[in-house]
């Protein structure tokens, strides 16, 4: 027994070092596994408010660009107005389909919420952004996030006024997308190399792909409504040993300067997930 105490006393520094390492590594691995580490919620409030103050100053420098982007988006929306469509045939009458804009929950599947980006964590392998909209404002985990240019990522953690979003540039992020031309589905991942490019896997070789082809979100992903911009094909890797292409995509979103994003809530996500789970259980 005495020797045990002597040992502990002699190596107390080393043991303390090991203890701190174990604590640090357990934080790291637990957080990687479950994205809702409990203590990040508390920290999110504190660092979020500091980030917000900083971003207030920073956003002045980008005002001009944001204005241009908003104007472009307004233009795009104006193009869609019913007044812009007319028929030369006077006997026909064009009416606005009210179902599209109905706020009735049962019909409406996706609703959009705007949010300001107050923190941007980049440069490492795990990229997040922090947005100033939290559970009190209707954000929950596993909601899709898009920017005016294209999709951004998925909400992984929510505090009462802030939420953190795992961007496409995160090693664990995956999303189902499709080619605009043929409609073939594949999965987008990031290989951790360049922040401008992501990898699209599992596109069958029967698909006709060309450089510059557009890639959109697939309606099979419960996260995003279909046909949102993801990126364009910049390189086709023809792997002879497999029946699938690996494509390199240039992301539509520029992750270095996003300032405003939209959070997309899917009112029926839970129902769909529940059905998928129960189907899987039934046939396994």
């Amino acid at each position, binding site marked *: 027994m005495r020797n045990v105490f002597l040992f502990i006393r002699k190596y107390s520094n080393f043991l303390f070092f090991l203890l701190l390492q174990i604590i*640090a590594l357990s934080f790291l691995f637990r957080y990687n596994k479950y994205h809702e580490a409990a203590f990040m919620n508390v920290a999110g409030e504190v660092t979020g408010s500091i980030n917000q103050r900083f971003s207030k100053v920073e956003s002045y420098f980008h005002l001009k660009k944001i204005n241009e982007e908003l104007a472009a988006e307004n233009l795009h929306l104006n193009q869609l107005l019913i007044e812009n469509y007319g028929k030369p045939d006077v006997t026909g009458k064009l009416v606005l389909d009210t179902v599209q804009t109905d706020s009735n929950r049962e019909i409406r599947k996706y609703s959009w919420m705007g949010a300001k980006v107050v923190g941007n*964590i980049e440069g490492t392998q795990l990229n997040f952004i922090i947005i100033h909209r939290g559970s009190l404002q209707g954000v929950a985990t596993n909601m899709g996030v898009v920017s005016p240019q294209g999709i951004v990522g998925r909400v992984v953690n929510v505090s009462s006024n802030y939420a953190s979003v795992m961007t496409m540039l995160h090693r664990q992020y995956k999303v189902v997308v499709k080619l605009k031309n043929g409609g073939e589905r594949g999965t987008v991942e990031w290989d951790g190399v360049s922040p401008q490019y992501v990898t699209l896997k599992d596109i069958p070789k029967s698909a006709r792909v060309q450089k510059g082809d557009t890639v959109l979100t697939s309606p099979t992903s419960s996260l995003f409504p279909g046909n949102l911009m993801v990126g364009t094909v910049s390189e086709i890797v023809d792997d002879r040993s497999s029946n699938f292409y690996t494509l390199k995509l240039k992301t539509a979103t520029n992750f270095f300067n996003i300032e405003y994003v939209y959070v997309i809530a899917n009112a029926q996500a839970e129902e769909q997930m529940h059905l998928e789970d129960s189907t899987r259980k039934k046939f396994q």
Partner: protein
Amino acid sequence: MSELLKNIFRFFIFIFVQVFILFKMPPLHRFITPYLYYLYILWLPFSMSRASIMSVAFLFGLSLDYFMHTPGLHAAACVLIAYLRPFVVNMLISQEGADKNYLSPSVTSMGWVPYFTYVFVLTVFHHGYLVFLEWMSFGSFLYFLGKVIATTGISMLLILLTELLFFRKEKFRTNTV
């Protein structure tokens, strides 16, 4: 200003500079991440015990992790260099008892060459461990090596600049007091 107060200020300033200046810069290359924050641990006084250096380093790393949303990543690397620091200091200290006569490791107390050897060794350990943890689940060895070398180069440059800009004059204190 007392040494304790100075170090508390440094704690916040290093975190602020790292998070809001160095990490805000658009990355030059995928290998290069400018790290400077761990200089705080290298500047801690000689007189602190190893356990307290490690505790401070752990807290310091963890507070950076809160901003970066990688709990434990920087903390683990900080604790490692805090643990190795006394070994390296003992090996490199040139004059007999310099760690008693001066307050903290610096160019004045150790001399240019030993001080930068000390910085370099701990920088390599810090980046090596950090990149190792970051790349553990993926990536090739070449990336690991490239990133450690490139990041170490940038960090050494930043530290040299910091040392020149904020030259710390260390007072010689006799140990007879």
